[in-house]
């Protein structure tokens, strides 16, 4: 297990390096940050000064070399736009995004798995059909449309919930969080539902499919024959065995939730990382884009690692060393 983890981490370093080259090249190919950053009516002299200051006049390999040597010292560079360390800008935004992502994950698990189980056990019941219908809807509706509709209905027409923003935050071990205030929770409900809707549909389908497969298996039949209580059969035998694919998918989806909550964050003006990255791309604020994407790569590697470990705990047949 230890060998496996170390090997994974080594691989990740190579991956991050490749990623940094790609992102650097990509941003370079899109356009010159000078054209979006510098005021449109700036004089040539001002332009040259800014370009030199950011090192944009140097050849690409020299810019990359400088970036890499700084990065090794833990300095990802300063944002062109804000003149503050890119990492600081990103870490400032992490709590908001994580909080929202966890709320969405929580909703997904808490609602998705039980509904999936029900739909799997009683596939012919009306309620199950309703669940499957809603999940089909969840797959097909665009996130931004759903978000705007929820805002229209719950904020504008009914006036039950606020339309956007994060609401009141309080320090929780020094990190600003909003789930500890009523105002904060009210602000979180709509974006969390919006963010979880697709995943919820996915998990319902996965759980249902898994359940249907497992209830036909011999050991469930045997458990029934033995006269075990059905609650025990469901929770121990069925659920545990359907959880394996669900864990993998949830892990991947959680990563995606954090990395690409952009749409939801934009609609609900949620001050997370997604909004930061979109703004940075439109101003070609390269240090922020590079730092963000590298962090996301790192995060995906960590999530995959954790998923693999949980996997081995859920299914003793899986041995980490062999899979690596």
């Amino acid at each position, binding site marked *: 297990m230890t060998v496996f983890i170390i090997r994974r981490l080594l691989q990740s370093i190579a991956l991050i390096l490749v990623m940094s080259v790609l992102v650097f090249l990509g941003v370079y190919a899109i356009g010159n940050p000078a054209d979006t950053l510098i005021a449109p009516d700036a004089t040539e002299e001002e332009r040259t000064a800014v370009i030199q200051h950011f090192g944009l006049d140097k050849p690409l390999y020299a810019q990359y070399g400088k970036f890499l040597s700084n990065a090794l010292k833990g300095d990802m560079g300063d944002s062109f736009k804000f003149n503050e360390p890119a990492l600081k800008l990103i870490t400032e935004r992490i709590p908001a995004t994580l909080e929202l992502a966890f709320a969405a994950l929580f909703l997904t698990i808490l609602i998705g798995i039980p509904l999936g189980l029900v739909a799997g056990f009683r596939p012919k019941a009306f309620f199950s059909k309703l669940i499957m219908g809603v999940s089909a809807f969840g797959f097909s509706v665009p996130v931004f449309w759903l978000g705007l509709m929820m805002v229209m209905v719950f904020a504008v027409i009914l006036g039950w919930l606020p339309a956007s923003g994060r609401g009141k935050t309080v320090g929780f071990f020094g990190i600003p969080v909003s789930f500890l205030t009523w105002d904060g929770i009210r602000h979180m409900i709509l974006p969390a539902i919006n963010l979880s809707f697709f995943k919820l549909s996915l998990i319902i389908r996965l759980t249902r499919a898994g359940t249907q497969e497992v209830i036909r298996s011999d050991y469930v039949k045997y458990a029934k024959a033995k006269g075990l209580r059905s609650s025990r059969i469901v929770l121990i035998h069925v659920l545990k065995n359907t959880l394996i694919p669900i864990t993998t998918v949830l892990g991947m989806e959680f990563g995606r939730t954090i990395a690409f909550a952009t749409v939801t964050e*934009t609609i609900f003006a949620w001050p997370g990382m997604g909004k930061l990255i979109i703004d940075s791309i439109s101003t070609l604020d390269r240090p922020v884009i590079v730092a963000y994407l590298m962090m996301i790569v790192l995060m995906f590697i960590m999530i995959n690692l954790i998923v693999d470990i949980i996997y081995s705990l859920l299914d003793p047949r899986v041995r980490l060393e062999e899979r690596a």
Partner: protein
Amino acid sequence: MKTARGMGIAAKVFFLVFIVFLVSAQSMSAQTILKVGVSTEPASLDPQYSTTGATQQASQQIFETIITRSQNLRMSPSLALSWKTIDPLKWELKLRQGVKFHDGKEFGSDDIVFSIKRIPRVPDSPSSYKRNVAAIKDVVAVDKHTVHIFLKTPSPALPIDLSFIYVLPSTTPENASVDDFNKGKYVNGTGPFKFVEWVRGDRLVVEKNNEYWGQKSSFDRVIFRPITNDPSRVAALLAGDVDIIDNVSPVDQERLRKDPKVNVLSKPGVTLMYIHMDSDRDQSPHVTGKDGKPLAKNPLKDPRVREALSLAINREALVARILNGAAVPSGQFVPEGMVGYTPDIQPDPYDVEKAKRLLAEAGYPAGFAITLHSPNDRYLNDEQVAQTVGQFFARIGLDVKVQALPYSVFGTAATKLEYSIFLMGFGNTTGDAARGMTAVLATYTPSEGLGANNRGRYSNPEFDKWIKAAAVENDEEKRETFLQEAARVAFLKDQAIIPLYFQTITWAVRKGLSYEPRMDEYTLANKVTIVK
């Protein structure tokens, strides 16, 4: 034991939540709060860091400039009560007395000297205020409320430059970092509001300065919330989350005008949208014959062709249909009311017959083929505007392709002169035609700071002569005449660019509030008033 500990945590959490409720309930009482939904957020709270509109909009609440600008961008007294030239290279400012900074320090000439001298030393700014002090050689405090400014060259635009210089107290440490400012440590101005807190991406909170010399706020506290998404900002207003929003898109304006709960307020803005053409090279990359073969000569070099293109555009229809009426057609660089506006230049009429005749006279009776480039994320409905203009060109017999790209790509290519004809905008934020005409229309001469945005490389010595004369003329009336002469050369004679329209700027407020629209697009919270 285990359960007991669990209970302990649960109880603590409950207690915490309870405290938060109490605190929030208390802070709600008796304070009047104005919530502003803004479309962008500042880059920094150092008021001398970045000239971008979003940053200045925040600075305007807390700080003041030496001279201020009215809603029509005319100069008006602020911290300086009066300004005059003693000789062409020496100006005298008389300062307002009895003004205090938020920390209690009395405002005086030392603060003006400090603020002007600090600008070149603000590090790492991508859009610095340096050009606003470029003409200044030295600043001297004569007495507590008199300042003399010495110039390198005569600069009639000095008052405009001073209207961009935000005043910090001379006690601000030299090494104050951006971080210090963003945490509010040195955010100490003379403006209508005091800084409370800034959470990037979420809110900027300020409170009323009861000792402000000018128009005091009607609210105790103001919260600015950045909501970049247009529909979300409108939803926030309709849901009552915010009281006023800026930058209402034309589609939403239509809807909001019908809503009895809100008022929509608008005014023509300063951003000119125009079509820029390559009027310099003999072979231009995106102009060919209709058979796709290169032409002997670039037709866009001929002023008759450029005029024909201008006559081909039905500006009224463009504004009404594509921009939902949220724009004013234009035939020149600045809107009415601004310095340099030329009353005898009107927007070209829509005249297809004359346009075709001009094309034939110029030797292109059958037209030619062009690709019109446009950004698709920079200006209001930019891509649709380009498509429509393309169709107008097709009506006079041109083969037109329209290509729209993100501004980050478009801007780079346009500056590298990779386009032949393209849609572009320029913000006349100084309230004066000189800067825009110098940047967009003067002959490209980087060493003299001329033509920095002249991506079509238009060049006419006569135009340059008037612009250069205006740049050194101290007499305001004469200077305006020179600018008008320059405009006549560029628009009546040469059709250097094709002006299309000025976008209107629009706010929406909840009923019961009022705001006077401003050309500079700022939402100044102390000017939001309560109406009965």
